[in-house]
């Protein structure tokens, strides 16, 4: 509700240019904001997953379970579940209500990354190193794995061998075998976009598990796919530093822009925002490993490769002095003050008060109905319950301004 009282022009044109916070808890390799932007999950190099509360910049949950470094993190839509995948070949779905493990799924090979279905926290897609990408579904308490093809859909000849499913052997004769490095759901959850090591983008229907469309975008590996909020544009990041911004309108996968990364950053990730892709490059000394843009505020969190500390950039709004007195207004230039006709009239207090009280009678007040404020995030988002252990009292704090 503070948006109602803020200056709209001040809000709209700001880039996060100030380093406001540094979060130090272990060596972080991967970070992800939840949908509302008030919690940040960070995966550490020893396998622990830490959830930071971004209202206090303190730790909300520490999740231990993985034994090797965390590869990827994915939040459920409501923010209650978190899926982490790790180099120990396991994916764990955590319930943030108490930090317990909801589900653990073991794979036969190393995992590149795993993403939850945008609407159903019991389905996720995992891209594996030595295996086909797998859609895992554990809706009815059984873990079912569906293997998906890495091979692109052939449109020209070869109609007979056009099986959407498996059979890497058949494909191998036609072209070199390729593996899927990254797979993610579209915003509606209806399709899966998978990027392969040969530069193909496969679009797979998530219900039928058939590849419906393939497009060759480049010759090098596709390392990362990320959708914009509206779901219409995506960014792909390649092994050689070359970002492409693609607009899949009407299933015409056209390359709309190409961004060339000036500095060679082999392992970097990029977040979609057409204005600000280069802001972080100039200010950080060491190599960036992961950058995340807070979905609802102008705030960017980034992890560095050397120390694994998380740097938070945000905007610093200056104090608005006009708010400190009820009738101050900030003006651009001098305004001539014109006195009212009755400015200096002397009205006895009693009459003035009676006049004021009478004016009040016309107003209709509604103190109960709740109205949605435009611009605010209004979906239900899970609040991680604060659990204070009685053992760690003698947190005798002092004023640490």
């Amino acid at each position, binding site marked *: 509700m503070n948006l109602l009282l803020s200056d709209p022009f001040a809000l709209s044109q700001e880039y996060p240019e100030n380093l406001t916070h540094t979060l130090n808890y272990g060596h972080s390799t991967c970070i992800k904001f939840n949908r509302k932007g008030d919690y940040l999950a960070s995966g550490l190099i020893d396998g622990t997953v830490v959830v930071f509360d971004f209202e206090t910049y303190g730790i909300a949950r520490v999740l231990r379970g993985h034994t090797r470094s965390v590869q990827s993190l994915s939040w459920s839509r409501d923010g209650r579940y978190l899926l982490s995948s790790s180099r120990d070949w396991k994916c764990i779905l955590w319930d943030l209500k108490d930090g317990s493990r909801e589900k653990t799924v073991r794979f036969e090979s190393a995992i590149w990354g795993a993403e939850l279905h945008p609407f159903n926290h019991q389905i996720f897609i995992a891209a594996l190193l030595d295996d086909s990408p797998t859609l895992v579904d554990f809706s009815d308490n059984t873990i079912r794995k569906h293997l998906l093809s890495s091979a692109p859909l052939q449109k020209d000849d070869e109609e007979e061998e056009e099986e959407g499913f498996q059979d890497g052997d058949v494909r191998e004769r036609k072209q070199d075998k390729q593996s899927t490095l990254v797979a993610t759901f579209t915003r509606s959850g209806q399709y899966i976009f998978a990027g392969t090591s040969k530069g193909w983008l496969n679009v797979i229907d998530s219900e039928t598990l058939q590849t419906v469309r393939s497009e060759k975008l480049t010759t090098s590996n596709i390392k990362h796919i990320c959708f914009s909020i509206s779901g219409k544009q995506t960014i792909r990041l390649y092994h050689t530093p070359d970002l492409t911004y693609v607009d899949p309108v009407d299933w015409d996968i056209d390359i709309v822009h190409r961004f060339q990364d000036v500095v060679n950053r082999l392992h970097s990730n990029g977040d979609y925002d057409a204005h600000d892709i280069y802001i972080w490059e100039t200010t950080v000394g060491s190599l960036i490993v992961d950058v995340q843009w807070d979905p609802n505020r102008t705030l960017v969190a980034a992890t560095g490769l050397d120390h694994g500390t998380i740097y938070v950039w945000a905007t610093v709004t200056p104090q608005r002095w006009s708010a400190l007195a009820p009738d101050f207004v900030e003006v651009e230039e001098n305004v001539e003050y014109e006195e009212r006709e009755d400015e200096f009239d002397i009205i006895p207090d009693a009459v003035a008060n009676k006049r004021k009280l009478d004016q009040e*009678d016309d107003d209709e007040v509604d103190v109960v109905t709740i109205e949605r404020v435009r611009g605010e995030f209004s979906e239900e988002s899970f609040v991680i319950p604060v659990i204070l252990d009685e053992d760690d009292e003698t947190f005798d704090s002092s004023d640490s301004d």
Partner: protein
Amino acid sequence: MDKMDLDGPADSSGDTTDSELPSHYGNAVPDISVTKASANAKPVVATERTDLPKYVLQFVLEGHRAGVTTVKFSADGRWIATSSADKTIKIWHAENGEYETTIEGHGRGINDIAWSPDSNMLASASDDKTVRIWNVMSGRILRTLRGHTNYAYSVDFNPKGNLIASGSFDESIKIWDVKRGVCLRTLPAHSDPVSAVHFTRDGTMIVSCSHDGQIRLWDTSTGQCLKTLIEDNNSPVSCVRFSPNGKYLLSGTLDSAVRLWDYLKGRCVKTYQGHKNEKFICVPTFSITRGVWVVSGSEDGRIFFWDVQTKEVVQVLDGHKDVVLAVDAHPTKNLLVSAGLDGVVKIWIER
């Protein structure tokens, strides 16, 4: 130590000499002349309406040895917490008024308490300059928040339960992290003691008021002041809180008026009068379970109900022998609880 039934309180807790109470009860505010506004206003007592509140006394809860400063229903509606100048907090069942437990630990009298949104924790602000967080069921202390340099007057949890705001006699507001127990921010809020703090229902703003007559709205995440409201006669504001939908502010001022403010327009839209409030902090509140009323205690021992729209006095409850400092309405049922300097807590019900 237990609750009693309706026939008259057996009484030793009634008399509280001024020497027992912390100084701000008796003389928080020096001289305020009664303004003409209250002398003029004739509160219209509605008699022809059929939807008037009809609260009657249900339970009398005794046990505090000094005046009771705050009384609050828990968010889930099962408990009542009362804080007192006798340095304790007592927990009672909301259904039947039965006494549950006492929480002790503060060094001096307690001014304000607030429930956490999950009803498991209580925060209390006391004259010993600390704010403490307690586990309600075990009564044990979880965190002690030190930092204020003078009496802590008022405390509130944010709706997510991870922040606490506290206002103090040292003219500042501090925002604390519940989990770590550290102060995240200090707002240089006013130039006189801060008498109340309250969060909006989405936790993005804090409202505070002070003896200098100002009401200020603050942005929680940046700590900036967003707006200041002041009434012409500068009378000290003893308490302020947001309406249930967060669009209006209800303030009690020491000129015997309760005001409803629309903070977007920046002016007072309703004034409720008829009670007496010139020295003490009588907390006004909304009752919205059936009919929308504004309820406040008064220095003559009575409790007033006003209709929000028409400003008429729709019910007056009599029963306390001394100033009624605090009232609170149950979140879902037609219950009202009141307490005051006589140390007695009363539960009123409307069937």
